[in-house]
């Protein structure tokens, strides 16, 4: 029997060319009962192999190939839990002491970590083979003796491989001699880098990417042949018929290597409790206090108490009280340090989380499904995501967790960076030696391949890119580009997932330094951690949380007060703005698609907003749920249900399933599924779907539905609704949390616009729109936006009171392009000492260079010091005298003053925004003569009328779900006009539509529920006026 003990997956980054899952499947196909994954310097793929191997009926063996200080690599296999802990500690020690990516350890340093580990001597890069290849047989013997001394004779094996290579055979003979001499047993391996021989080209491509070369130049660095696939027992028996023991030893050794990741030994840290208190008791106490504060008394409070009791009972049974306490502790830390925090995701389904202040949505009042969050049968840690203001405040919370649980007790989860369209095109193209411009072109184009044509997709796209799809290299490109998709390239860190452990986390998983100082990353991603029962808390940075927090601060600074927890729930002005799609800058509902739907859904209460957040998602769109919902909401279609039993579940969404929770409940009601079975269904049809699993679950679903007595069309409708929707369905709890933020941002935008817009501009880039559009939106809403001024602007945008019209917003110096933050802060500091006497005084005291001074002059920021933009430009261009000299006598400026167009161009060039007229306003007279309507005028046009609109293109989108249709948003001085472009029109006017910053579009007005858009018939560019605003393209 042969067991492969040295497989290397794509988690040996840029070396192996296969997913661990593919190895597991191939091992099962070959009838191999076990397989060891021995990736380079880590156990990155072990969790995925464990999951896949369990499904394939293959025993996964854990190991890693450790890089030694001499550059050789030593495969280590794990025998028991102690061995695993040693391996993790060893890798952590290697990695943490050196910069990211550079890890190696001396042979002698292995000694403390050998218990429970078995050592093989490796393949061509093993310490023996490397020495033998160099003719150093004595050195090889010494190393073998040393390995035997370190690991013990019973835990050391000389590894032999046969890939049909002359030099390898020569080394093999000498290895056999060495092993005999040292009385060390042999093991055979093939050290596969791919599951089947077809994987060889990709392994060669990885070699090129790793060595920064191309296939024509890589020479003998490429594989000599395609023999590095996973080989079965028959083939290996034939290869090693002269060394039968080497094969037999693999089977015996595999039996010995009993450790699997199920025996990880992970424990969650214990929360420090008051004396004499149990975790559950303490949690109960805190929860009861929270229920009193949140619900008070009444019917809802009674229901809430019942729900909390139910949840606490389950939490107690699952022994999760400590987990809730730790999350509560993080939230409390945020509260005491004035950091806005809100739980989201399925945690919003929990009344306990609501009572503890972890989440802000009332699950009892909203009848959310607790089982989506926590289920006894699932046996998993609950998923609690905390949204925090992005940036420094979130980092402060992360560092708090490190301090609390120790540097080796907590780590960020990894984020495996995989090859996707653009990076894959670039790197595969480079390896194939395609010219740079072609690579760029391909990379640029693949990013737009979101819309999938039905036939000859790749060939067509390649032809579009100017490539001949029949040329051999281009054909290879197509194959390799497809094959490389989703393979890991390197490890990054997850945006916020933190895992913590009792004791040392590096006993559970190796830790690595992150690129960001002060952080360590575990070698598994969040799914791996979840799969192995490692608890994770997501500390996610959300730009809108920063905007809200900054807005509150600005309101407070100007004497106002807003409490997000006490916002009036049904503010009419807020709902009016939502119904009118007046939502630029509002969380989650500002996109073009959301704006096109808002006037049709017409949200009137909070739950409508929850629906609105969830409805513009691929799931409802693909599942064709959007139009039925809107028709029913507008009363054009009766509300019906596939089966009467579904009415309580679907009533709130008018009979149309929109949320994951509804999906679970539908399965529970119509097919008699338990909560855990329903969750299993969701996962089977979820993002990482497997055909086999889907088929199994669907059969079970159909059987369950039949058992409930539902047959025929109703049964089919239910099955279709559940299976089609499961892929993208949005959780109701998640939508509720987001809707809360959407409401809060809309409220601040309506009632405290100066603070809101200032905070929004201070947190750019974020959201959907360019600052130029945000500024124009603010002005259209009557907010007075004050220009950048060196005598009063801060680094950030601020709110300042002005007489009569309410507070105004002052643009901050951060919007001056090319102005260093340090210089801007020096400007603020210097003027606080004493006002600036002149431009040269400013330059001297704030240490501004001539370019910075020139930009400030060009945008008018020096005007308060006297002079116009042009006179100040003339003055700023002159060398300023040193500190010992007086300013030169002010010679009059010979420059003419700026025109409106010049001011506009200078504003855009110097700040990216303008407070002056919109570029379209400057040509409105001419446009009006040609019958071109403004965005505001378009809103009153009847359906079917021929119109012309023009504007600056701020959004271009070609969603994958829109069958090739392109959507444009054109901004003018009155608002935004929406344009729909059909595929034939797009093909005809492609250049103008994609490249022109200003467009004139002629078409037919389409009016639907008050939403007017233009179906384009013709489009052409308008000459640009100076600088233009970058649009949000195809994002």
């Amino acid at each position: 029997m042969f067991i492969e003990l040295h497989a290397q997956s794509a988690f040996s980054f840029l070396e192996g060319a296969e997913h661990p899952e593919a190895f597991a499947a191939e091992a099962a196909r070959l009838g191999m009962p076990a397989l060891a994954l021995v990736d380079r310097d880590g156990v990155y793929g072990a969790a995925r192999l464990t999951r896949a191997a369990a499904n394939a009926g293959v025993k996964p063996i854990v190991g890693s190939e450790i890089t030694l200080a001499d550059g050789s690599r030593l495969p280590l296999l794990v025998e028991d839990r102690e061995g695993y802990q040693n391996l993790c500690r060893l890798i952590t020690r290697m990695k943490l002491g050196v910069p990211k990516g550079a890890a190696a350890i001396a042979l002698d340093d292995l000694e403390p970590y050998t218990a429970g580990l078995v050592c093989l001597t490796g393949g061509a890069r093993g310490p023996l083979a490397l020495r033998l290849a160099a003719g150093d047989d004595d050195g090889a013997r010494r190393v073998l003796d040393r390995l035997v001394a370190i690991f013990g004779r019973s835990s050391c094996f000389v590894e032999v491989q046969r890939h049909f290579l002359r030099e390898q055979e020569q080394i093999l003979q000498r290895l056999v001699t060495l092993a005999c001499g040292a009385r060390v047993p042999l093991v055979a391996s093939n050290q596969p880098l791919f599951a089947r021989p077809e994987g060889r080209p990709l392994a060669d491509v990885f070699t090129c990417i790793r060595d920064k070369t191309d296939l024509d130049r890589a020479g003998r660095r490429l594989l000599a042949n395609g023999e590095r696939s996973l080989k079965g027992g028959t083939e290996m028996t034939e290869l090693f018929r002269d060394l039968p023991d080497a094969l037999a030893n693999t089977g015996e050794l595999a039996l010995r290597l009993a450790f699997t990741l199920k025996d990880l030994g992970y424990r969650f840290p214990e929360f420090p409790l008051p004396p004499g208190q149990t975790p559950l008791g303490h949690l109960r106490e805190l929860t009861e206090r929270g229920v009193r504060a949140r619900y008070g008394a009444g019917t809802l409070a009674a229901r809430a108490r019942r729900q909390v009791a139910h949840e606490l009972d389950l939490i107690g049974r699952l022994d999760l009280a400590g987990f809730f306490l730790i999350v509560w502790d993080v939230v409390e830390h945020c509260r005491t340090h004035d950091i806005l925090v809100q739980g989201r995701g399925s945690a919003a389904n929990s009344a306990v989380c609501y009572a503890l202040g972890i989440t802000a949505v009332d699950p009892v009042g909203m009848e959310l499904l607790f089982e989506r969050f926590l289920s006894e049968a699932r046996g998993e840690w609950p998923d609690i995501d905390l949204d925090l203001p992005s940036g420094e405040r979130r980092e402060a919370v992360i560092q708090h967790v490190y301090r609390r649980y120790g540097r080796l007790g907590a780590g960020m989860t990894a984020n495996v960076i995989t090859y996707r369209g653009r990076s894959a095109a670039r790197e595969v193209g480079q390896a194939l030696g395609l010219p740079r411009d072609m690579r760029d072109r391909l990379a640029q184009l693949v990013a737009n391949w979101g819309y999938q044509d039905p036939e000859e997709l790749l060939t067509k796209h390649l032809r579009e890119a100017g490539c001949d799809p029949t040329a051999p290299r281009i054909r290879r490109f197509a194959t390799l580009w497809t094959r490389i998709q989703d393979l890991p390239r390197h490890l990054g860190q997850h945006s916020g997932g933190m895992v913590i452990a009792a004791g040392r986390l590096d006993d559970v998983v190796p830790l690595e330094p992150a690129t960001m100082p002060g952080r360590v990353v575990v070698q598994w991603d969040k799914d791996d951690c979840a799969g192995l029962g490692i608890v994770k808390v997501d500390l996610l940075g959300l730009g809108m949380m920063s905007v809200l927090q900054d807005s509150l601060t600005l309101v407070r600074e100007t004497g106002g007060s807003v409490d997000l927890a006490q916002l009036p729930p049904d503010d009419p002005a807020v709902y009016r703005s939502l119904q009118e799609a007046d939502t630029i800058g509002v969380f989650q509902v500002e996109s073009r698609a959301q704006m096109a739907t808002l006037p049709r859904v017409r949200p009137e209460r909070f739950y409508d907003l929850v629906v609105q957040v969830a409805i513009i998602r691929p799931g409802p769109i693909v599942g064709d749920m959007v139009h039925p919902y809107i028709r029913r909401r507008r009363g054009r279609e009766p509300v019906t249900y596939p089966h009467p039993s579904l009415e309580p579940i679907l009533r709130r969404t008018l009979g149309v399933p929109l949320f994951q929770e509804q999906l679970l409940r539908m399965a529970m009601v119509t097919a008699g599924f338990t909560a855990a079975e329903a969750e299993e269904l969701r996962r089977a049809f979820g993002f990482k779907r497997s055909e086999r699993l889907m088929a199994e679950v669907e059969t079970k679903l159909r059987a369950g539905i039949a058992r409930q007595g539902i047959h025929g069309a109703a049964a089919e409708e239910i099955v279709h609704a559940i299976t089609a929707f499961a892929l993208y369905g949005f959780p109701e709890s998640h939508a509720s949390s987001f809707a809360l933020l959407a409401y809060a941002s809309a409220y601040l935008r309506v009632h405290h616009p100066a603070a809101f817009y200032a905070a929004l501009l201070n947190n750019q880039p974020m959201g959907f729109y360019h600052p130029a559009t945000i500024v124009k939106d603010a002005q259209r809403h009557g907010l007075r936006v004050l220009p950048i001024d060196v005598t009063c602007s801060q680094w950030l945008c601020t709110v300042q009171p002005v007489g009569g019209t309410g507070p105004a917003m002052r643009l901050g110096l951060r919007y001056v392009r090319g102005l260093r933050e340090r210089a801007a802060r020096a400007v603020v500091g210097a003027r606080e000492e004493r006002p600036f006497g002149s431009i040269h005084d400013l330059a001297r005291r704030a240490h501004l260079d001539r370019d910075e001074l020139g930009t400030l002059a060009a945008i008018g920021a020096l005007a308060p010091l006297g002079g116009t933009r042009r006179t100040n430009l003339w003055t700023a261009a002159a060398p300023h005298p040193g500190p010992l000299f007086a300013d030169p006598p002010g010679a009059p400026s010979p420059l003419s003053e700026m025109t409106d167009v010049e001011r506009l161009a200078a504003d855009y060039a110097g700040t990216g925004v303008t407070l002056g007229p919109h570029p379209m306003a400057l040509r409105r007279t001419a446009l009006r003569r040609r019958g071109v309507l403004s965005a505001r005028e378009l809103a009153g046009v009847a359906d079917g009328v021929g119109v012309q609109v023009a504007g600056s293109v701020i959004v271009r989108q070609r969603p994958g779900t829109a069958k090739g249709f392109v959507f444009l948003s054109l901004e003018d001085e009155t608002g935004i006009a929406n344009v729909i472009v059909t595929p034939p029109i797009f093909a005809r006017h492609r250049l103008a539509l994609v490249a022109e910053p200003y467009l004139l579009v002629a078409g037919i007005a389409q009016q639907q529920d008050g939403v007017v858009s233009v179906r384009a018939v013709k489009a052409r560019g308008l000459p640009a006026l100076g600088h233009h605003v970058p649009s949000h393209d195809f994002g």
Partner: protein
Amino acid sequence: MSRFGCVLVEHFDAAAVERCEPALRERPLAILNPSVDGPKVGREGAPTASINMIVEANAAAREQTVRPGMTETEARARCPMLVTRPWVEEYAVSARHALLEAALAVSPRIEDGGAGLAYVDTVGLERLIGDPASIGRRLVYQVRAVGLTARVGLAASRTAARMAAANGSGAVTVIPPGRERAMLARVSLAALDLTPDLAATLGGWGVRTLGELAALPREGLAMRLGPAGLRAHDLALGLDRDPFRPWTPPPFWEEAQGLEWEIDSLGVLAGVLETVLERLCRRLGAVALAADALEIRLGLASGGHHARDVSLAYPMSEVKPMLTLLVLDLEAHPPPAAVTRVAISAHPIRTQAGQGGLWQPPAPAPRDLVTVLARLAALVGADNLGSPVLVDSHRSDAFTMLAFSPPSGPESLDRRGRRGGHSPRQDSPALDDPARLPALPQHPTGERPQRLALRRIRPARRAEIETVGEQPVRVDALHVIACAGPWRASGEWWDTRAWARDEWDVVLGDGALCRLARDRLTGHWYLDGFYD
């Protein structure tokens, strides 16, 4: 009084192509510059398409908004009738020469202002030709005669003349004396070709025309923009500060001989060639030049021509080796008919005198070496001459030929005084590479075993092999006594030159130890070589 004329041919690269294909004049034409990072030469299967950029467009194309810097795709989208041609250096160079020569026909003092631009000193031409407008018309006429369309400006300075040519309304624009500043004032600043930084600064100041620039105070400009600003100011005023650099036509290194009788024998032709070469070499020697390439052009009795380019491996001015090389080349590529005229032109270069190193072994005289190489090339073919160099490949028989070149100097000597580079006496590549040798068992005493050398058969010989399974058991008529293998290698799977082969080392019945190879793509067997 006008002192200078400026002859301007707009969109010059397009004009150079139109000169060769006059039919294109009325059609929108764009000149393309294919990517420099293009497909590799000689690589089959390399990408056939690359992104073409527009480098120039004629007036008709510009009317359709085609501009340099666009991709060909974009240009075609704007102008579906667009005709494109690749940029050809020879066209541009010959058009530039033609323009200068046309200007030279009007005035003996001209300056090469760059592609499509020539300045003419017009002082004294009034007496010969007439008023400035007449001079301008003469220039236009001369330039048209060489196939180009020019605009001419005449003014007191070159800059003013250039601006007049570029911005005038007709083919000839004359700026009367003293009117330069007024005429230039309306011209756009972009006409000056300033650096991007300077142009951006002036743009920020609202300076859009030369008049606005000229109106700025000179001291203020100097303080703010330094010398670059002053130069721009001068140009805006129409003042030239740069000296006039007269252009003279390059010398003509060609000698020819017309024949009164037809020559159909190479031996006789060699005598004529020698006569012509002697004249040419005397001219070269007189100005201390040598030739590194010759072009021979034979007029034929049939009315045609026979032309050959002969590269000289080292620069020379001696008749004998030149003659030998020409004769050898003509032996290999004889003219198809009797010769009636002989012309030889040389590509001259200046040679640097040098001497051999003190410890340098005597080398053959370069002319002898070159002659020998030429003889060898004639015998075995140029592709089969040189020193073999291993290619970094898993393919065990992969090599390439590196052309011989004469020694370049003492620095190419290695420490043992041997010349660097590749020489025919170099060890066999197979012996230099342990990885290419067959595996041998370790000698029991631990001593380094004696190596086998492979005597490779080039090209490998097809062999009739009988196999059992994959293993060879009979080679031609001989039994295989023992064999090792297969040793498997494959490569270049990404290309049309993909290969895959198995090698076997076999001992035959007659005691020979040889290497067999099986092409896994065709299934053919080859006898690859014998081990010594």
